[in-house]
């Protein structure tokens, strides 16, 4: 999903681990609403939220979120 200010691969990373949005929300200890809005590019995550998501997916922040070219 591409937001005008941030590209994100959250859905792909989640699918790689075969997790639902609710599963990822539980792992990252955030709400499912947060996962949904970040995936859809509606909400740009804060630093700590990005770190929580990366830790929950066992990857790095940079592999999930990138600046647009």
């Amino acid at each position, binding site marked *: 999903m591409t937001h005008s200010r941030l590209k994100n691969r959250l*859905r792909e990373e989640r699918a790689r681990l075969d997790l639902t949005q609710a599963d990822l*929300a539980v792992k990252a200890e955030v*709400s499912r*609403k*947060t996962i949904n*809005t970040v*995936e*859809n590019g509606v*909400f740009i995550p804060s630093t700590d939220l990005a770190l929580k998501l990366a830790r929950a997916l066992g990857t790095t922040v940079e592999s999930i979120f990138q600046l647009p070219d």
Partner: protein
Amino acid sequence: METNRMVEKADVMSRRRAVLLLVAVVVFLGVQLLIRPIHSGPGGESPQRLLNGWAINVIALMLLLVIRLQGGLLNRREIRNLINDDVSREHHREAINGGFWVAMIGAMTVFFLPAFKSYTAREGSYLIVTAAVGFSLLKFCYLEFRAHRDS
């Protein structure tokens, strides 16, 4: 698992909050715009109209506080933090920002309105508060519903 249940409960409560708030703001706007309980009429500024004005201000303030109450006071702190997470706090900011601009535009409109129609300061305030609070709450509800919509 405990965390699983908390996330599910927070999801449900967050949706419920948006629905209840939408109902409340529709009722609020309905009363304000259709019944207009403080507007001057043959009775002038009667004690009843003054009391209505106070009640409406209290209700408007309570509605604004609802979107700041962290998921209700009856839930555990962890659930409240999930209900009032980054996304909801951002929605709150956007809603309040929008309400501010509506209030400013409303105030400027009210400034020029006496050229066309006379009204009291209370009625002017009533218009501004109704427009700003209504807009803020509707925007908050819209943003929350959008966030809950499945992709």
